[in-house]
């Protein structure tokens, strides 16, 4: 049922679980007040790890959202998915029972799969033997579990995908779902990202291979700061209800904003963190701006990737200068994620949820911890306190290992 003219895609519901707030309202309350959720890791002893702080979610109880049996058969990543879908659907005021199930889809990004569940099972296999492994392992572990379980719980029968793209997977998911609704492959898509990597084994791997800051300082995630030494890892999920604009209008939904542009490029530089060259990332910015028909003066702020490593920060600044030239001085930029840590596939979706709430509340959320902003970057970074926002659009950027560059443009309707 491909439509000849591209349909408009709007966002009508939000759901969030982050280290500084459960639920989109608590999340915005914290993020707009510069309140950090980064704390010492509590779920296990991190004494033997090179890092001891993370964006951990301590007050979340899966039993509040799903029945015990399902809690036991699914991983923590999927618990986050159930909770955020429930919130986002309620927020959108949409009754799925009244929708054609074949026109409703789900696109849920994830990077690492259900690690808590599968690692325990692999240890069992090697310690006790293959017969002792749980029969639910395969379905709890694979990234596809999230859309599988969501489809069963909500009777979704349409277009469902699981994008996986390192730290940029969440934005990629929003882009894929946006394109699917645009071309008419679905009317409503539950779109988000989830991640639950705060376990001893994955944290060990990430601590030694990912661009993470070491140590126990909860204020050490400081992008564009002279002392920048990496990001702080986090868990969490963000969920958005994406809808065909006409569909949303007909049911009288309130609309947060519209996805108006999406650009994706690749540095093609192998298994390395985002590079110091912003050449391809600048192309993503231009692609998203062109598709959206946006000018610099329309943009309230650019939500940056801010990995807080010298090459990555330099590359992001380079891209901004290439794409915006001298206008970059007037373009407010921010990394609100400094308050919740980097939750990989959830991160880009949470940045988008922040952006949509920023448009609603007319406030640019700040970057924290950047006390010694490196002036060499030439960036207009919003620090410590919100700034007023009057323009209609926000750009959200994300980069990932392997050279992925994604930029999403959202705008008020």
């Amino acid at each position, binding site marked *: 049922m491909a439509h000849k003219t591209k349909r408009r895609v709007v966002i009508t519901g939000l759901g969030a679980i982050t280290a500084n707030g459960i639920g989109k309202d608590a999340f915005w309350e914290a993020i707009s007040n510069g309140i950090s959720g980064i704390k010492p890791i509590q779920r296990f002893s991190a004494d033997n790890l090179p890092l001891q702080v993370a964006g951990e979610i301590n007050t979340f109880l899966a039993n509040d959202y799903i029945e015990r049996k399902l809690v036991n058969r699914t991983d923590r990543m999927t618990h986050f998915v159930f909770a955020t879908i429930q919130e986002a659907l309620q927020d959108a005021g949409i009754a799925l029972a009244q929708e054609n199930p074949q026109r409703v889809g789900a696109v849920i990004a994830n990077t690492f799969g259900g690690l808590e569940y599968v690692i325990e099972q692999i240890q069992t296999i090697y310690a006790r033997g293959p017969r002792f492994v749980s029969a639910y392992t395969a379905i709890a572990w694979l990234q596809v579990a999230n859309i599988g379980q969501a489809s069963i719980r909500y009777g979704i029968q349409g277009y469902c995908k699981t994008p996986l793209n390192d730290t940029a997977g969440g934005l990629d998911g929003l882009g894929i779902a946006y394109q699917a609704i645009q071309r008419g492959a679905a009317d409503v898509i539950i779109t988000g990202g989830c991640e639950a990597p705060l376990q001893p084994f994955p944290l060990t791997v990430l601590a030694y291979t990912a661009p993470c800051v070491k140590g126990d300082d909860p204020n050490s995630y400081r992008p564009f700061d002279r002392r920048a030494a990496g990001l702080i890892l986090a868990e969490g999920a963000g969920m958005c209800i994406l809808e065909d604009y006409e569909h949303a209008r007909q049911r009288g939904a309130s609309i947060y904003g519209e996805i108006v542009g999406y650009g*994706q490029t690749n540095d093609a530089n192998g298994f390395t963190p985002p590079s110091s060259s912003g050449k391809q990332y600048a192309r993503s910015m231009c692609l998203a701006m062109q598709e959206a028909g946006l000018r610099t003066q329309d943009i309230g702020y650019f939500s940056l990737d801010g990995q807080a490593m010298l090459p990555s920060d330099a590359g992001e600044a380079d891209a901004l200068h290439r794409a915006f030239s001298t206008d970059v001085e007037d373009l407010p930029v921010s990394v609100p994620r400094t308050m919740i840590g980097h939750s990989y596939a959830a991160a880009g979706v949470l940045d988008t949820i922040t952006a949509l709430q920023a448009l609603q509340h007319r406030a640019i959320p700040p970057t924290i911890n950047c006390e010694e902003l490196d002036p060499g970057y030439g960036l207009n970074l919003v620090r410590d306190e919100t700034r007023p926002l009057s323009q209609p659009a926000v750009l959200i950027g994300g980069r990932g*290992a392997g050279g992925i560059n994604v930029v999403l443009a959202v705008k008020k309707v």
Partner: protein
Amino acid sequence: MFRRVVITGLGVVACNGIGKEDFWSACVAGRSGIRGITRFDASPLSSQIAGEIANFDPEALGLTPEECVNMDRGTQFAVAASHLAMKDAGILDALSEEERNNSGVYMGTAIASMENGEKLLVQLMGQDKQPSSDEMSHMIPASLRMTNAPACAVATHHQFHGPCTIIATGCSAGADAIGQAFWAIQEGRTDRILAGGTDSAITYAVMSVFCVLGATSTRNDDPQRASRPYDKDRDGFVMAEGAGVLLLEERDLALARHAHIYAELIAFSSNINAHHMTSLPTDGEPLRQLLLQVLDEAGITPAQLDYINSHGSSTPPNEAAETKAYKAAFGEQAHRIPISSTKSMIGHSQGAASAIEAVATVLTLEHQVIHPTINQELADPSCDLDYVPNVARPATVNVALTHSSGFGGVNSALVLVRPDWIDRQ
């Protein structure tokens, strides 16, 4: 108006043949690639057979010495298959920077680089005290955290700067990656995409996980006859590894460079069962809906359909449901359309399977020969259609459909036609 998308290059790494020639001649001859597992000691497992890629030589397949060292096995399969596909298309290392800016990579995986992670986890379990920071840095491969490695590695190998993504929809992942790539080219977002799937998950832990589900065949004493979709004695799928990559190109660009065009991709549809994580409804209803949807997208009738490359995983409930869906969707035509399962020869390579099956479907259109479903010995009354038993068959195939179903419930289908078929209508 959507642009048209054609297939101009094929690369395949399968257990019965590497490269399109070896793979296709093995498929037409009905040769199985299933053997006893050699990658680890499988004796404690109920299922001890798999479709392993024997004698995989990454360097001979175009990988650099660095790629041979730094990449996990599944990623190497993907790069090797993409190298074969670009060579086949005649544009290996031949694209300008601007052309590479408009070239992307979409790969499907279900399990991805499990082997290295499992090895490290076991290594750490066995240690009495935590290794030092220095030791740890040496123990952990840099690519271990990169679950998107197969797509990024292919993009890096060919210096493609367009969109690059992994779709991880279980056993439909490869077809989904191809479908997403098709849409991206149709809509004018990109001009060419290397699309396909890869997986290398024949490990002790992964096999244990599937064995406990009773999902895999236990015909350990007769591996080549273990994968037997539609046969009454089928007892589960056979685990396999491999990769399939196709070069998708915008049609006018392919015509302009006088490329050999294998086929035109004219439709992609996808849905989800919303039923159960590991089984499909016995009436085949979601598959019926999908088949009708993809024919509608393609603008064709069941009477025009010449061939189906099925999911056919050798799982007792799957093939019965599949057969019901064909009958419900195609009516009387279901008995006329030849159906064959590539998995009967190469087992189930997870995220790679549907991409390798897309390669097989394209080769069917190219050679006008339908490869058989092997191991058809005992008829199952619930599977009473034409599954092209045991022997390949020459046929006129203008329009072909390939579909897949998987863990989590995603079903996807692609419709491919002979390069000139649309214009002859």
